[in-house]
């Protein structure tokens, strides 16, 4: 008996040692500085206790409010759009059409493509005298300054979907393929319609996967900063000024207290969002059982 427990202890030690690089890396580059930042966030830069003063200052800051609202707005618009769009495409591909494998492979291509390498294309596409406006003028629609007006928000939404839809399509296809064929056969015996099969089998069966797809879509929505930065620089139009721009620009002035308070708030916000999604997922699973 005793040998078994020492063996277990040795196993645990080996496991710990193998995981050590991760533990050290995470502690060094995130956990320890993050905890120090939390501690420091309750003090003024002079060193006197400030309570929640730094937090109140940030939350009242107009630029922070704008950036936070834009980030949330972007998420609320993009995530449902991309989930719906990629689900439709995945359902198409799932029907085992000619070339389904080819399409699946091509759809992830934008993910691989460096945005910087094709940014010129998007510049020319959306410029004032660009391709989109020329097309619009055929329908006598007046030219829009896509990159320097509030329309830039939609440009960014388009780029986000262009880049990330392949990722979601693959996840949806994996979810669809995990559904047992027996369910469909049972329905076919009942001579149910395609819509009925979709509503009563397909959608309920992929609900557990939806959780992760939502999470990854939210995660990827933060990465849209890359496109926004490459297309419009540090100070884009106010409609796409995101929290990421805010942090970046505060890095330029090295206002570290403001930086750490802002990131603590963002961390908490995302943490809560993940918790809510997780709770929703558990509820959906209970409901299905």
């Amino acid at each position, binding site marked *: 008996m005793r040998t078994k427990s020492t063996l277990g202890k040795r*196993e*645990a030690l080996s*496991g*710990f*040692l*193998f995981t050590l*690089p*991760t533990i050290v*890396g*995470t502690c*060094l*580059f995130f956990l320890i500085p*993050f905890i120090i*930042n939390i501690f420091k966030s309750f003090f003024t830069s002079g060193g006197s206790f400030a309570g929640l003063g730094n937090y109140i200052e940030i939350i009242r800051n107009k630029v922070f409010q704008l950036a936070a609202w834009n980030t949330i707005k972007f998420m609320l618009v993009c995530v449902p759009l991309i989930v719906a769009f990629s689900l439709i495409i995945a359902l*198409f591909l799932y*029907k085992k*059409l000619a070339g389904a494998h080819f399409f699946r*492979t*091509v759809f*992830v291509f934008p*993910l*691989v*493509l*460096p945005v*910087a*390498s*094709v940014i*010129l*294309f998007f510049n*020319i596409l959306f*410029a*004032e*005298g*660009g391709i989109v406006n020329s097309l619009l003028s055929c329908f006598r629609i007046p*030219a829009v300054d896509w990159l320097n007006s509030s329309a830039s928000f939609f440009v960014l939404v388009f780029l986000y979907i*262009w880049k990330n839809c*392949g990722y979601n399509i693959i996840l949806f296809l994996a979810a669809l393929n995990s559904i047992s064929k027996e369910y469909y056969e049972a329905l076919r015996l009942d001579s149910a319609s395609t819509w009925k099969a979709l509503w009563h089998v397909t959608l309920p069966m992929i609900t557990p*996967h939806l959780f*992760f797809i939502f*999470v990854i879509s*939210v*995660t990827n929505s*933060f*990465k849209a*900063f*890359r496109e926004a*930065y*490459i297309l419009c*620089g540090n100070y884009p139009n106010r409609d796409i000024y995101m929290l*990421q721009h805010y*942090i970046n620009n505060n*890095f330029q002035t090295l206002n*570290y207290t403001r*930086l750490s308070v*802002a*990131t603590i708030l*963002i*961390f908490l916000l*995302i943490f809560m969002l*993940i918790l809510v999604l997780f709770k929703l997922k558990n509820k959906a699973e209970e409901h299905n059982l």
Partner: protein
Amino acid sequence: MKVGRKKGIGVNIIIESVLVITVIVLLFPVLFMVINSFLGSKEILSSYGGILSGSNLQVHFHLIPEEATLEGYGEVFLMTPAYLIKFWSSLFLSVSIVLGQVMVSCISGYGLAKFHFPMKNEIFYLVIILMMMPTQVLMVSQYPVLSSMGLIGSYFALILPGAFAAFGIFLMTQVFSYVPNEILEAAKIDGAGHFQILLRIMIPCSNMGIASLVILSFIDNWNMVEQPIVFLKESYQYPLSVFLSSINTNRLDLAFVCGVLTIVPAMILYLFLKDALILGIENASFK
């Protein structure tokens, strides 16, 4: 019966055409860049003069250039080596991060996937949460550490945190957990140590998974924007992914060529590892 089939074919044609249109929209930017990289400076001026001068002159885009030349390529490859140097330093940066990440993730992934020890689940949850955070949130924590190490302004400020990125650890933990425990038990009975098991069993059994880590991580770092613009001080150090946005308007002809050059490494990896890429996306998920 016949009517039903006819209707089915009609629907299929509509679906196929939707898919084909989507593919064209997704791939057109690359085609556009490649075509334009063969334009001479004269044709660039006549096509995109409006963009260059910042006025709202219409652009004229031709699918087939009136006069295809290799002028741009000649200049980038022979006359102005600065662009090629950038290319190689970008490649050095991405390859270093990928190598570091593969090493860290394989070792830690083995620990997290195949052992039980206290706090293991908490560590794994933290990895997942970090994976979802915007890069900027992580950078604010990394900055003081890198600064006290004296690394701000050097490529190591990008490589070191990059090697420990949460995504790789998460992916390899998932990949390794698919290796059946029976094989490991058998190897242990034969007297294999943990490192032997990792090198001789875990890694060879998961080569597709590792390939998927290589391509996903390479792409992410080849495209990196967030870290260089904060952690590097001089704009001449910027990797191609950031640098390209600054040459866009001055030298449009060179920008097209550099754009194509930037696509090439990602394209090669994609062509060889596209199945691994898809597998990686499927593996890096949880229910």
